[in-house]
């Protein structure tokens, strides 16, 4: 068991390091110069070269690339990602500042999405009417085909501006997070629902379900007691992968609902080539991705006894 944990942890560490390095490379491939982006683009030609030099020195952009990399990596290992080029704020505090909102939104949306997906799968499995099943099975592809900003704006028009049930922007109070959660959950629910509908169908026709029928179980009982749990296990993996992307991928929801969050921070950081900030965010996202998948890997054996056997065997 200890070996299993060590192995998974080692992998997670590798993923984080590789993400850090890859991002560094990507940022260097970009055609823009981070120093230029500190000035108003229309005034760029007017900026005296010595000023440009001075600014570049301020952020260490004049050093050889490898040295910059080593420097950043060294500091990153101690948890210091430097200061944002744009605002001068320490990267860590800029991220921590928006972190709670992001976590709340992504985790909430994921939970909502999973619930919706399970709901869809339950209805698709338990209904005996073909047309209901057809409609419900089309929902996942419907969900991934409406742009988030469009659904967000439409939801706002109806529930905020017309009905006035929820605030349109800002982040005070639980009421303000309802609409963003729904908006973000819709596209996330699509692939999960798709997966669940399939695995529910597979499990529902499996041998042990027949045994349950024969025991005298009812349809509802079978779906709840047998199918639900076994069919949901694969969704756990998908949910883990999705969560990592949700953190930085919620930029559109955050923008539409004017919320603060890592998504917008990321977009801005990339837009302004704020190298330290981008690196900090990537490492943060990679760490959370790795942690979540580590968590999934570790609890999977607890939920699926067959996996436990595999894990034991690796001791």
């Amino acid at each position: 068991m200890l070996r299993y944990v060590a192995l998974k942890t080692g992998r997670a560490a590798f993923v984080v390091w590789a993400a850090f390095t890859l991002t560094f490379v990507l940022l260097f491939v970009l055609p823009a110069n981070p120093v230029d982006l500190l000035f108003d683009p229309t005034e760029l030609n007017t900026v005296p070269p010595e000023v440009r030099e001075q600014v570049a020195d301020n952020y260490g952009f004049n050093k050889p690339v490898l040295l910059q990399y080593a420097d950043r990596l060294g500091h990153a290992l101690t948890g210091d990602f430097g200061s944002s080029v744009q605002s001068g704020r320490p990267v860590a505090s800029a991220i921590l500042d928006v972190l709670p909102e992001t976590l709340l939104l992504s985790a909430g949306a994921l939970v909502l999405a999973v619930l919706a997906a399970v709901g869809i799968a339950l209805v698709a499995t338990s209904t005996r009417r073909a047309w209901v099943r057809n409609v419900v099975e089309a929902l996942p592809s419907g969900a991934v085909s409406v742009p988030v900003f469009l659904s967000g704006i439409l939801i706002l028009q109806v529930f905020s501006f017309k009905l006035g049930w929820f605030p349109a922007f800002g982040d005070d109070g639980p009421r303000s997070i309802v609409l963003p959660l729904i908006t973000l959950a819709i596209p996330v629910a699509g692939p999960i629902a798709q997966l669940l509908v399939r695995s529910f169908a597979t499990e529902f026709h499996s041998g042990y379900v027949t045994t349950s029928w024969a025991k005298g179980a009812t349809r509802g009982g079978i779906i709840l007691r047998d199918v639900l749990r076994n069919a949901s296990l694969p969704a756990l993996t998908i949910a883990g992968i999705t969560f990592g992307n949700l953190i930085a991928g919620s930029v559109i929801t955050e923008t539409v609902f004017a919320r603060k969050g890592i998504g917008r921070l990321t977009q801005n950081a990339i837009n302004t080539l704020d190298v330290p900030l981008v690196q900090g965010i990537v490492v943060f996202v990679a760490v959370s991705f790795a942690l979540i998948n580590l968590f999934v890997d570790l609890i999977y054996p607890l939920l699926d006894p067959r996996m436990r056997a595999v894990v034991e065997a690796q001791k």
Partner: protein
Amino acid sequence: MTHDPLLRITDLAIDYPAGRRRWTPAVRGVSLHVEPGELVALVGESGSGKTTLVQGALGLLPPVARRRSGSIAYSGVEVTGWNDKRMARVRGNYVGFIPQDPNTSLNPTKRIGHQVIEAVRFNAPRPGTAADYRAAALESLRTAGLQDAERVFQQFPHELSGGMKQRALIAIALAGHPKIIVADEPTSALDVTVQKVILDHLAGLRERLGIGILLVTHDLGVALERADRILVMRAGEIVEHGPVRQILDQPTDDYTRRLLAASPAQHHGRLRDNTSATGLVALEARALSKSYKHVHALKTADLVVRKGTTHAIVGESGAGKSTLAGILAGFTTADSGTVHVGATELTALNRRELRTIRRDLQFVFQNPYTSLDPRFTVRRLVEEPLRAFGVPIEGRAAELLKAVALDESYLNRLPGQLSGGQRQRVAIARALALNPGILVLDEAVSALDVSVQAQILQLLVDLQAESGLSYVFVTHDLGVVRLIADDVTVMKDGAVVETGPVEEVFHAPQHDYTRRLLDAIPGRDLRSTR
């Protein structure tokens, strides 16, 4: 009420869809009944509609199936057309069901105890306490013949052997105290020793509890030995029914006669005398050992196969038979020991050389349902080895099919359109395509009903006579061994316990385990009763 049988099926007909508004009948007007304390056996070849019939009786038909006519009554209560909600009150507590495949029939993520408790709880006449349920479940596990019920109670399905799982399923079926048990081939996946235990157990339950049993099987031996009455099913119809004696003594239907004739227990010698046997060694294994992470699957096993003979390997489940066969055929590498095919040492070959030697050494898998690529037509399947070695293929496919008694019309079918027996014949045709000298068959006929099994065994023996093939034949059925083998090796727990010519081993078993195996052969007494 008292005159009503436990189960009466009248004129039941069930169809499966076969395209647009076309239906193929799977069960055509079957009637049967089971009385209290009676064991009725339903025998028939693969695909004859046995499972469909049983599913129909329990209302567990797949959604695509359609009941065209007929009625089902339990103790006179008409349940035809009841929805799942009403049937739930009948299932479990009036009729218990034991499914065919123990490996997939238990929920893999729940403890056995929990699964039995559910069966108790659903069918308890009045709500009880958790302790009551637990006690009842343990009781049921014990009744099903699991001595160590307390331990099994805590275990998950993957921690049990096939036989134990099957008994857990029996416990589940018994937990609701049903009046009748329907068992769909409850033992065909198990080796003979376990099979005997379970069948003995069912028989005991019938006597002790007076319940009725409807036993589906493809093994006539089992039916003759255990049943009060036998129903013979073919192509969706009951072609013959009556008490065992009557079936045995005066079979009226041709098919029944063929079934009887094909039963391995009906023979005492080899199907055909071996004329091609030589003293040369075709295959020789020395001191093979193999361990998996926890299991010592093979412990210094030796084996010698004489050219032109059949060498059978028998033993209970998990004895290491497949491991040994896999090493012989070059699928698995041994931890230590050597295998020689003629003069070549198999264990020393690289991948390319191994490929070359496969022209001479072919393998047939246990399960015809998984060993054929579902996307390949029969023609492509049979031609695959020919293409692999660039051998001319003109006309070979048809020839090979003919050799396994299939006609050319099968060439364009997919495996899904074949019955189990037909598939296995395709697998054998494929293995024969390159004219190999040695054929390793891992339980190649175990899943087949006796009539098909007999056909294939005959084919193998004939081929051997014609072209001097050598066979390594893994099986758990000693009856089959007697039909085709020249030599036999008995294995237990990864070690060879006995080896020698068939007559010797069968007449004078040296090892206690061999004796137990011989005792367990179903239908062993048929000859004497006849």
